[in-house]
């Protein structure tokens, strides 16, 4: 098989306006970053609430959170995405359904579906990390807080959560990196994020080795950079005396 290597392909015109292929990658990366960040916000907020629920004394809250975690962890991400993209819009009230299907730009509705899907999917994982973090704290922490007269919400907000989050920075970092990587499933419902742009470039130019290599390098470099940054952050905010608990 013959293959024509051409690394200058990224600077060639796509034939659409004055765009070059590199522009496609930049647009794609923009979507990927936007997707990752917005899903992460949902995942972190919901995951924290669920994680706290799993450690509450009340039976009902804990059970609800457990069911949530099992449900979202045992169904493949792609199935969940199809449900959010193909099924859920049909269940909306009629006006909302029409707005979602007809008024919104296709890219926007796909973006919303993926964001909600990834956010809820990752929340189940964040929940488990938050729970582990809270349970890793010595029991005396909560007891001391109660003894000082704090009420339950205050105990969590002022004593347990701030410490728990400092412990679970490493696993949370890898969850964020997972969101970043998982956002590539958006390409399967037609959102032009990094992977979809790569595929398109490969198909347009027939320079598939170059296109996929560039995508790989982008993912690899961003991943490594984030990991190094978070390692630094973790060191700076480490809870003195609790080092042995970190990292798991």
């Amino acid at each position, binding site marked *: 098989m013959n293959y024509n290597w051409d690394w200058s392909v990224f600077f060639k015109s796509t034939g659409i306006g004055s765009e070059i292929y590199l522009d496609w990658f930049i647009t794609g990366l923009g979507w990927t970053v936007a997707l990752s960040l917005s899903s992460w916000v949902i995942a972190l907020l919901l995951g924290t609430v669920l994680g706290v629920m799993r450690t509450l004394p009340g039976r009902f809250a804990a059970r609800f959170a457990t069911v949530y975690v099992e449900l979202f962890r045992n169904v493949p991400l*792609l199935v969940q995405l199809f449900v959010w993209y193909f099924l859920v819009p049909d269940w909306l009230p009629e006006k909302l359904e029409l707005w979602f299907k007809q008024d919104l730009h296709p890219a926007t509705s796909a973006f919303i579906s993926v964001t909600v899907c990834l956010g809820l999917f990752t929340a189940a994982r964040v929940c488990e990390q938050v729970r582990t973090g809270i349970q890793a704290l010595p029991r005396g922490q909560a007891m001391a807080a109660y003894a000082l007269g704090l009420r339950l919400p205050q105990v969590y907000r002022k004593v347990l959560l701030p410490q728990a989050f400092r412990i679970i920075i490493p696993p949370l970092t890898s969850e964020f990196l997972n969101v970043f990587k*998982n956002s590539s499933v958006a390409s399967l419902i037609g959102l032009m994020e990094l992977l979809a742009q790569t595929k398109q470039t490969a198909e347009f130019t027939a320079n598939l080795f170059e296109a996929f290599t560039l995508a790989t390098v982008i993912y690899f470099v961003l991943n490594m950079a984030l990991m190094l940054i978070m390692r630094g952050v973790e060191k700076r905010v480490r809870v003195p005396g609790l080092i042995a608990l970190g990292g798991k």
Partner: protein
Amino acid sequence: MDFTQIVNAFPSLGDGLLLTLELTVLAVIGGVVIGTLLALARLSNSRVLSWLAGFYVNYFRSIPLLLVITWFYFVVPFMVGWVTGTNQPIGAFTSCLIAFMMFEAAYFCEIVRAGIQSISKGQVNAAYALGMTYGQAMRLVVLPLAFRKMTPLLLQQSIILFQDTSLVYAVGLMDFLNVARSQGDITGELHTFLLFAGLVYFVISFGASTLVKRLQKRLTV
């Protein structure tokens, strides 16, 4: 919801599920074998080997599985062509299987490495004292002990792999999810079929991980 359509589609859904399971089992076997070799390389005294294995693991862990699947689908036929000099298509199943084996090997490697490192030094020293070579000590003493410890983790990772096989949708392989989706499209019952697919995945994964948890309790010494 029309469940008769699902019953009618049972033969093709069964074929899809079979393909999913086949892919999972083969990828787990390949992944564990490559992963174990990588772990041995990572822990070896040779700087070069250990750096190479470390790079392999970091590399595959920082790119999305979907990217690897797509990459391999396009690229593996070229590679095979260059190596063998022929122009034979190799098919989506083979390229996906290779992608899964190589990708999951990075994750299995980390599990095996942790397993090996959890074996006490005394075991290795005793093996050497008995006159065993490095290969014998690994094969007869360390790996059997380590694998017993890490079986639950390896199985958990295999369940994740089982769920991830649904991503072969990207290259058009007719796995369980893809069959369910296309049957849903044909019959106009996409809702029913997708929910059914989700239910099947849930039952298998949840059932398997419950079993693994039970096994974990029995294996802990």
